[in-house]
């Protein structure tokens, strides 16, 4: 029976340490989308009732212009005041504006309806973009790939909640009261923001030097346009998405026009908009959960992106023939429902062949430029058709049908070009395997990958295998077995490794274990042992022999098997393999398979002074990866018991544990003790440095020693920060260290921040070190805590110390001074 933790990990692919963040982030998104959906329904209802739908095309134009201006100002603001302050300010700004709108709508001045219309669009786009920016700080890229889909569900639920709420409240309490509900919902996000903020690195909240240039420069747009012109795939994508935005304007206009003429009461109209939003959310959620992945797998990306225009075409024909409320609602439902589910997934897939280094820039460009340009163009076309040609809704629907046919034609071309681009990207190895993890691969893309397995190029096959290994094995199991006959030993080894990973019984076949190539046969034997493990002495001996095989491929597979079958006798050998960089990842992975049982042996070997340093230095990281409390206790207990480098490995391991397993408890007293020890060492080294500088011998070796001491002081400071990060929020502490080191302008504020964060005891230890290291003028002239009487005394201490490199230089110098006796060296104790 699996634990709730492993259930969450298996089903949702969300790690335990991420659960709180995912819940907070999706709730935050739910609240902002609820607020947006509510206030959007109010806006639409008030606008079409008080101003009339004929003015809508002007609004599309106005929104496009306003978005351009706002994004220009916004990118400067985010760089100047930092993300958190900006989000907080935006939320407070939005809440106060909503309250103002609530008051002014009693006056019925028409200017406010225009203002609200544009304001809501800006509110929706800014809060959503702020949210995703915040999320990108709270989750690292690997986490983001796994959890963003689940966070997005919060958004869909927000649409459902907002729609449902609007539908009920508008009827009972009137349209305007919804504005207050939207304000309250936004106020709730402020409380969540404080908690979410605690998970993000501090530098996310403070202005960023590198980000001081505007996000969307003129040069960037020109470069992107050039990029689009160079690539047929990108060009077609831009056309496709632009047509989509134009059609969206048509759909919006027709829907609101028909709705306005179907209701006499403003509140009923608002409730209707809310109901439609509710069903759009529900439709998206169900479609996304039940059908999107199936359609993509079975019919491919072409179908995924053609469903929306085809559905809209059918609904537009219906509306042209019968311009009534249900037909308009159907049109809106198809638009919203498909846009937020399968169409989005299909469009995401279209970005796959674009090289990762340009993908984000291209997406940003398309999201900003294409959206604004398409919206403005849609507004202009609609103005022409409604204000100049005075077309009816039926006629407009016919025009929309023409646009939709063009959309479908571009879709066919895009699909064809997508496959060409994908094949080219595959040949150039421009697709990163992780990109496939989050996408449901469509059939055609998948077939292209499988075809690559028959390539003559060994690297191409290995690359295709890497990409395919991110997809479910059942989809390509039958294509891989033939690769055991491939002339390349690397391909054969990878084939066996994959089949073993899948527990595929076919590796027990003769063709594997008696393969004509001896190495392949031994790799297969090592794999078969994992499937037919009986724990007998003979099996153990065979596996040990294979682990010690001179071929790293054989040894690697045998190590994996030792981990899978949890052969306890192999633990010492696995630890011994840690220094070998070719086998290290497999050896560590195998050790981790033993769980708690491996920790005592790792700790024993770490403390054993007769164990080679090359083995001992690798143990802390292995212990860190166990994620267990007693491993952390052992690491902390070992601090300052071994040599300088081993200590550093222990600190790095503890930092890793603190970062990845926040629930692990760290004994603060012990850490404070370790910080004091580092502080003492720092002070001693500093005094030595000052002595040597004041009594400079002038030879090259003495200069080398002073340089080495300075470097050690820097490293001691880093170690102090690593220790502090064990008991304070690591992101904040690293951020202070980074800012002090790299950004002199921010040093004062970083020290100030630290002053407020640390306890008085720690402040008096850490802050002077910082000042001494980065601002030596403030500490110049301060009496040294340790007074030396001679250079010999300094050298003696270094020779007796635990730092091998300082010891080496000191011995070299001592030897030289001894050889040159009795010539006195400056400051030397010759008496």
């Amino acid at each position: 029976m699996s634990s709730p933790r492993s259930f969450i990990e298996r089903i949702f692919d969300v790690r335990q340490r991420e659960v709180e963040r995912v819940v907070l982030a999706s709730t935050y998104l739910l609240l902002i989308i609820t607020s947006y959906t509510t206030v959007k329904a109010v806006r639409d209802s008030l606008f079409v009732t008080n101003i009339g739908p004929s003015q809508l095309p002007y609004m599309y134009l106005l929104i496009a212009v306003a978005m351009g201006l706002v994004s220009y100002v916004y990118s400067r603001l985010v760089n100047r005041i930092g993300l958190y302050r900006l989000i907080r300010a935006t939320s407070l700004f939005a809440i106060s504006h909503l309250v103002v709108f609530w008051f002014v709508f009693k006056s019925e001045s028409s200017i406010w309806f225009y203002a609200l219309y544009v304001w809501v669009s800006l509110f929706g786009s800014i809060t959503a973009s702020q949210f995703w920016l915040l999320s990108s700080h709270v989750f690292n890229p690997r986490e983001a790939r796994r959890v963003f889909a689940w966070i997005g569900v919060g958004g869909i639920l927000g649409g459902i909640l907002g729609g449902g709420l609007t539908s009920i409240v508008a009827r009972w309490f009137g349209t305007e009261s919804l504005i207050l509900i939207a304000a309250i919902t936004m106020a709730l996000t402020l409380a969540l923001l404080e908690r979410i903020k605690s998970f993000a690195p501090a530098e996310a909240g403070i202005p960023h030097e590198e980000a001081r240039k505007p996000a969307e420069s003129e040069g960037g747009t020109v470069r992107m346009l050039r990029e689009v012109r160079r690539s047929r795939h990108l060009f077609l994508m831009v056309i496709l998405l632009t047509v989509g935005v134009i059609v969206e304007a048509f759909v919006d206009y027709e829907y609101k026009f028909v709705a306005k003429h179907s209701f006499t009461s403003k509140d009923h109209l608002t409730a209707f908009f809310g109901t439609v939003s509710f069903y759009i959310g529900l439709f998206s959620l169900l479609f996304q959960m039940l059908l999107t992945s199936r359609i993509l797998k079975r019919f491919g990306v072409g179908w995924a992106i053609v469903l929306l225009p085809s559905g809209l075409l059918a609904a537009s024909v219906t509306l042209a023939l019968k311009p009534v409320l249900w037909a308009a609602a159907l049109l809106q439902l198809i638009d919203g429902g498909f846009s937020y589910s399968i169409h989005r997934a299909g469009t995401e897939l279209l970005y796959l062949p674009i090289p990762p280094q340009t993908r984000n820039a291209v997406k940003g460009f398309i999201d900003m430029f294409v959206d604004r340009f398409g919206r403005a163009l849609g507004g202009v076309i609609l103005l022409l058709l409604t204000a100049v040609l005075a077309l009816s809704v039926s006629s407009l629907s016919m025009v929309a049908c023409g646009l939709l046919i063009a959309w479908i034609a571009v879709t066919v071309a895009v699909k064809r070009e997508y496959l060409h681009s994908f094949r080219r990207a595959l040949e150039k190895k421009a697709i990163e395997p992780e990109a496939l993890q989050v996408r449901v691969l469509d059939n055609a893309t998948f077939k292209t990958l499988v075809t690559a397995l028959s390539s003559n190029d060994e690297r191409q096959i290995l690359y295709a295998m890497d990409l395919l290994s991110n997809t479910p094995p059942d989809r390509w199991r039958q294509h891989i077995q033939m690769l055991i006959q491939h002339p390349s030993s690397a391909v054969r080894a990878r084939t066996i490794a994959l089949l073993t990973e899948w527990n595929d019984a076919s590796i027990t076949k003769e063709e594997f274990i008696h393969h004509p190539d001896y190495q392949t046969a031994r790799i297969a034997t090592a794999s078969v042992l994992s499937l037919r493990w009986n724990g007998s002495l003979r099996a153990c001996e065979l596996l040990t022999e294979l682990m010690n095989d001179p071929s790293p491929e054989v040894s690697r597979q045998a190590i994996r098997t030792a981990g899978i079958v949890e052969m306890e006798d192999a633990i010492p050998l696995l630890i011994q393999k840690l220094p070998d960089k070719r086998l290290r990842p497999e050896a560590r992975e195998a050790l981790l398979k033993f769980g708690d049982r491996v920790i005592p042996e790792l700790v024993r070997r770490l403390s054993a002074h007769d164990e080679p340093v090359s083995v001992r230095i690798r143990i802390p990281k292995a212990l860190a990866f166990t994620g267990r409390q007693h491993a952390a206790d052992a690491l902390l207990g070992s601090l300052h018991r071994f040599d300088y480098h081993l200590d550093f490995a222990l600190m790095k391991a503890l930092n890793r544990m603190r970062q990845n397993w926040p629930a692990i408890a760290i004994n603060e007293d012990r850490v404070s003790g370790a910080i004091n020890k580092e502080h003492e060492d720092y002070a001693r080294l500093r005094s030595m440095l000052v002595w040597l500088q004041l009594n400079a011998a002038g030879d090259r070796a003495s200069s080398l020693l002073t340089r080495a001491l300075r470097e050690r002081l820097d490293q001691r400071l880093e170690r102090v920060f690593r220790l502090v990060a064990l008991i304070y929020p690591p992101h904040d502490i690293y951020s202070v260290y980074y800012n002090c080191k790299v950004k002199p302008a921010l040093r004062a504020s970083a020290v100030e921040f630290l002053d407020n964060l640390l306890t008085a005891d720690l402040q008096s230890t850490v802050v002077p070190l910082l000042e001494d290291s980065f601002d030596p003028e403030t500490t110049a002239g301060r009496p040294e805590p340790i007074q030396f009487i001679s250079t010999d005394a300094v050298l003696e201490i270094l020779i007796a110390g635990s730092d091998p490199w300082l010891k080496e230089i000191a011995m070299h110098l001592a030897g030289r001074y001894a050889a040159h006796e009795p010539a006195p060296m400056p400051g030397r104790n010759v008496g």
Partner: protein
Amino acid sequence: MTRSEPGTLSPVDKVLCLQHVDVFKYATTEMLAYISSIASEVRVTRNEVVFREGDVSYAMYVVVKGRVRLDKEDREVMTVGDCQSFGTWALFDNQPRLMTATAVEDLHLLKIRSEDFYDLLADHDEITPAMFKAVIERVKSLVTD
């Protein structure tokens, strides 16, 4: 004829020489000590060729004592002296040598093989950023020049 010989230099002596090498300028003294552990000592007599233009490059050299002339297509490009390096790019690729290196005087060299260097980087990954920084700085200066 170049010949390797048992080391006469201590790690500290080697570091004292390596610390002046441009490509190691951001390495700490301790990193230089690691590098010194893979630097073997080589003696070359006057007028001998260390490597020829077009040879496969597999090692870089640092002059401990002596002078080396670097020629391209039989024209002298530069002379390298004490604590300077030559053939440095061999650490980063094994393209054919661009120049011929000839001993102007009897030479005492440190030789760092690229294969050993990559093994060292695998064990001491903290050296990599320091190397990157120096190489990028050098590439930038080439572009600016």
